[in-house]
């Protein structure tokens, strides 16, 4: 894909990001961080491709560790946010 096209997507996504997350209430700062963090674990997609290509030990090894780190990020992030949000939901 052309660089300019990728750059276009990037710039527009940054604007969308700013638009949807303005005025987030302080109550949610922590779960927002852990939840958004899990989303940044999307690198797992690249890690899976690198590991599965099966081209040499080095690339596979690096890919494997990338899969592990990204999966911890994804699973840990979504799960810990869910735990926290579960506590916020209860009303006294």
């Amino acid at each position, binding site marked *: 894909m052309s660089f300019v096209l*990728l750059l276009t*997507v*990037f710039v527009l*996504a940054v604007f*969308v*990001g700013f638009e*949807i997350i*303005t005025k*987030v*209430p*302080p*109550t*949610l*700062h*922590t*779960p*927002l*961080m*852990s*939840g*958004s*963090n*899990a*989303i*940044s*674990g*999307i*690198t797992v*997609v*690249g*890690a*899976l491709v*690198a590991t*599965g*290509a099966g081209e*040499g030990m080095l*690339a*596979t090894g*690096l*890919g*494997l*560790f*990338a*899969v592990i*780190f990204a*999966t911890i*990020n*994804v*699973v*840990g*992030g979504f*799960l810990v946010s*869910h*735990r926290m*949000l579960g*506590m*916020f939901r*209860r*009303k*006294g």
Partner: protein
Amino acid sequence: MHGEILRDLAYLLASVLFIFGLKGLAHPRSAVRGNLTGALGMLIAVAVTLVAGGVLHWTWIVVGLVVGSVIGTALALRVPMTGMPQMVGLLNGFGGAASFLVAGAELVLKFGGDAHAGPGALQEKIAIAASGLIGSVTLFGSLIAAGKLQELHFSWKGRKIWLSSSLLLPGRHGINALCVVIAVALCVLVVRNPETAAWYWLLVLAAAVLGILITIPIGGADMPVVIALLNSYSGLAATATGFVLSNNVLIIAGSLVGASGLILTSIMCKAMNRSLANVMFATLGPTAGGPTADEVYAGKIKATSAEEIAMLFDGVQRVVIVPGYGLAVSQAQHAVRELATLLEARGVEVLYGIHPVAGRMPGHMNVLLAEADIPYDKLKEMDEINSVLPQTDVAIVVGANDVVNPVARTDPSSPIAGMPIIDVDKARTVVVIKRSLSPGFAGIPNPLFAMDNTLMFFNDGKKAFDELIAAVKES
């Protein structure tokens, strides 16, 4: 060909779900659904990659996914709410680690072995260098931040040194600048000689040193800014990796997280009336010429006891509790809730005033108080609580200092001048629960403690509330 189009459409669907997920996370009522929506997007992205991503060998993928899921699940289920700042810090770091590892693998796949393996697009090489740089800074910066939050310490020349204090190396600005120059030079080398993987790993190493050096001087009350900033970096690292792979879903997801982290960073900086550069590179300390602790406190401090405070509660209508990091340290949140329940049973309205930078990460106090089952509609933001404090009978400050220091309003030469504070001094009576008169992170005395309407209850946070509960039950 059809497979590729379907795969990219699935990635588009995942991106849309991420956007809806984050939008949901920004509002209390929709937050749970938002989080699940994001998780669904991730599931789709992973599933479609496995099916249509050109995966040939499954063994190591399965190993990686299983190991990562087990560790991630164990961490998420076992971490206590008090350990949440470290947990968030570590997760930021892992995202960065995954990014520089993927970029490293791509370097090997695209340019490795054969020096003439095709020119490769310039943008790809730049993106690889950027992933290495940002990813490594994120990982090692986050490890230091998590170590500070975990209160790790080490011995050096017979002295016990806490990682959490702001450790200032001599000539650190020079060292940092040198590190940046080396890192940039290595970026250029990576771009010009992508077939030499050693340059890439040296870049990762230089970025690691840089990540450590810029995080290590930052201490205590500035941690919320650092955590939010690293959150943003972890997103930017994913974006850079997206440019490496020419993959839109990485670029979109990464930019959303990058933007979200930046918004949090700016909220934190505003709450301290400081610029990001000031937090990162300047040191906060007592300015010469400010009043000394003796001048402020001498003869004006009134110590009190649990019994006296219990009597204060007679016939009051509104009590406001203002927590700070000390609440987390002494784990007083459950005792706070118990006292609040007792008071509420007598018809007292109990509210909580939360300063945006109270604690060690954005939203730290909210998480702790939510753990103790305190409903979130009683947790009031700074502006809201400041409007009711003048009509408040008793304000209880527990483990907070700088965020309630009236000097921020009155003395333009103070290091915290202009920082928005919670105006507890406007309440009829202020009770400050604190172990001693030691200064807060800004290192300046707090005239609030010496005011006519202030009573000091010198005690550990949790013990103080336990004693208060006993005293209130007896009265």
